[in-house]
């Protein structure tokens, strides 16, 4: 019973033909808490090549106006592809503390 009530509460809008009229709604789902490992960028070592930014499957890495690459931890799932692709080993990881 509890599950059923929870489902009801989510209140899905039933548009005709299941059209999503507000695109980009995936942003509402914060996936950061899925993480086991947390990647960290060492800004000293970073050469600003942008490879991590291009390869992040969730678009969780962004570029600041100053040209720095940073991770949005609200969405980063901790897959560590960024660490793998970094040519200067500027990205490392540790276990997420929850």
């Amino acid at each position: 019973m509890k599950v059923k009530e929870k489902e009801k509460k989510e209140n899905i809008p039933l548009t005709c033909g299941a059209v999503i009229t507000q695109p980009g709604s995936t942003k509402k789902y914060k996936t950061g808490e899925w993480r086991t490992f947390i990647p960290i960028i060492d800004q000293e070592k970073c050469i600003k090549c942008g490879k991590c930014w291009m390869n992040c499957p969730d678009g969780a890495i962004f570029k600041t106006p100053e040209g720095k690459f940073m991770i949005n931890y609200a969405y980063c799932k901790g897959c560590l592809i960024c660490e793998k692709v970094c040519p200067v080993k500027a990205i490392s990881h540790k276990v997420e503390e929850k």
Partner: protein
Amino acid sequence: MSEKKVISGAEGVAIAVKLCKPKVLPMYPITPSTLVPEKLSEFVFNGEIDSKMIHVESEHSAISALYGAYATGVRSFTATASQGLALMHEILPIVSGSRFPAVMFVANRALSGPLSIWNDHSDSMSERDQGWIQLHCESNQEAFDTIIMAYRIAESKKVLLPVMVCADGFYLTHAYEPIQIEDQEKVDAFLPDYTPEHYLDTTNPKTFGAFAQPNSYMEFKEEEEKAMREAIREIIKVSKEFDKSFGRKYGNGLVEGINLEEAEYAVLGVGSVCGTIREVIKELNEQGKKIGLIKLKSIRPLPVEDLKILCKDLKILGVIDKHASIGFGGALTNDIRSALMGEKVKVEGFVAGLGGRDINKEKIKELINTIMKNKEGYWLK
């Protein structure tokens, strides 16, 4: 220009489509529907219709392109038959689930194997659960008229479901008979422009074909079911308005009862066979035998309430099924039986006319004799 002309059924359908002004025509020819894309491509070539014809590489692509066209928010059309419709199977529920009011013409033909190009209803009957409204036609005039009505029904804001207009391959598509061709102005007045609420637009982006979780999928399907029930009322309404504009009607748009007063026995048929049944019951009436005919036009939505009313005084109803649900008799018979569950009428099913086998007057008389003797239905070969 309005005129009555002897032309083929397929040409009649193509002219009706032209009058409805679809913008995209994704076409893949297959017998016996081929004359429809042939005629339409002639209209496009001559500039008689402002449409883009897409020569696709399969029926799967044809229905996918039809989906794409509707996603951009324009009226479109395609035609197919038999294996072509079967190849479309995967996309059919996507079109209806996306609530695109598409119209497709199906020239009913048997499914292989063994390979057959001739008529029966196994192609469209096999697709009756895909969320498409399915309307069948008895004559070429009815096919012409049903195409025009189909767009009105499909595009009604209360319905928004695709419509399959079915006509028997060869029996109708290749038959030449008089068709009243209507004026463009009259059709324009009857069928307003298509104005969808949702369509692909870069200035107002939307997501189509999204994922539904277990907590919403059923609700979307339930909405479809509600729309299909709404279609029952809408078909009746559109049929009335069509009669007002053009002076022709086919029962209430869903089903037609013929000669049912005083009749204890009746035959239920779908499509062109009803014409031959009409002749038989006329003959039998002259001999004093009261036999009725129920001409079922709408397979989906199935007009359950209308069927109950039409059958209320009947003892036995013989159903002609031009499709066999192998392992459980005729699919139409099973539908009719469940619709009339709890009524006093007994339903007997006769699988007939498979793969183009002619259902002639003799066979219909044989069927009537069988039900009048209170015997069980069988394969009427």
